């Protein structure tokens, strides 16, 4: 009984580990079209955020006196 219980506990843990390893393989597979699409969509969204929020500075403003 205890042996089958350990097996039952081990099975979900093994499934989680397998899921994590699949996700890591997906995230690092540069030849996968879906992975590249998701990464580039995320980069596009990040670029839009940077353009909208981090671009309000004046290059010709006088330098602060230290």
């Amino acid at each position: 009984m205890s042996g089958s219980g350990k097996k039952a506990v081990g099975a979900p843990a093994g499934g989680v580990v397998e899921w994590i390893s699949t996700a890591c393989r997906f995230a690092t597979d540069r030849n996968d079209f879906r992975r590249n699409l998701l990464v580039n969509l995320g980069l596009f969204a990040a670029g839009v955020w940077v353009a909208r929020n981090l671009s309000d500075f004046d290059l010709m403003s006088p330098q602060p006196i230290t």
Partner: protein
Amino acid sequence: MGSVLAATPPPPTPSPGGGGVLGGTGLLSVPPGFSMPPVSPVPPPTSPGQAAGESASPPSNPGTYEECHRKCKEVFPMQMEGVRLVVNKGLSNHFQVSHTITLSSMADSGYRFGATYVGTQQTGPAESFPVLVGDMDNSGSLNAQVIHQLTRTVRSKIAIQTQHHKFVNWQCDMEYRGGNFTSAVTLGNPDILIGSGIIVAHYLQSISPALALGGELVYHRRPGEEGAVTSLIGRYTGSNYVATLTLGGAGAHASYYHRANDQLQLGVEFEGSTQTRETAVSFGYQLDLAKANLLFKGSVDSNLVMGAVLEKKLQPLPLSLALGAFLNQKKNTFQCGFNVTVG
């Protein structure tokens, strides 16, 4: 002041295979030599009571289909390689010639002679028709365009490209600008004898002063083969930004242009192709320091290609210098270029 290089027609490159798919319109490849010279758009006809209420004003003409992504693309630096000397000389108010000497280790070096004629039919403060633009290199290859405003709302263009005494590309298009829409039809490389050609139709409609929607249909035919590709486009214009999205059977193209202030403009671009199963993102910025007569453009993309172009006008001389460099980390290549423009 903007980019000096943008004021000149883009240098045409010879088509390697001779003929090709017409485009420059989002997702298809374009035969070289078919780019428009910078001509400002026709102002839409305004009704007498339109100036009274701006908030309730009807949508105006949305511009052309090709211009939707242009604002973002102009932020990115142009790839330069080798040395180029350009001398522009205006012979009269209507006629200008240019001499271009190119020295390059990757492309052909040579000399190009260009001429531009602008007619006397004035339709706007800085716009006259017809416009004839042509240039020829030392091997006799010719690129020529004729643009004419037929009526107040109809504009036509004819473009021809020859290479080594043979016609490589020829196209004709008509554009109609209504009050709140633009439609255009382009006929590319028609050959009645063998029954081949390309037809491109564009339509862009202003839904509101900020939103424009449109579509493109490309039909190509040659002996034993024919096909059509469609795509849809949507553009939203804010107070200081423009967001554009093109979706079609060949893929997707999204661009975001942001004008932070008078000096800084940014652009982000996403391109994805279902045919090549590739996607790419590019981020570019443009710094325009008018007080210093300096223009700097930089870009980086997801393929680890970094590029920058620095343009400096040497006032009071009619001279401008441009330095450019592109680095491709993946392919381990580096290109740099130096341009001098006189006049």
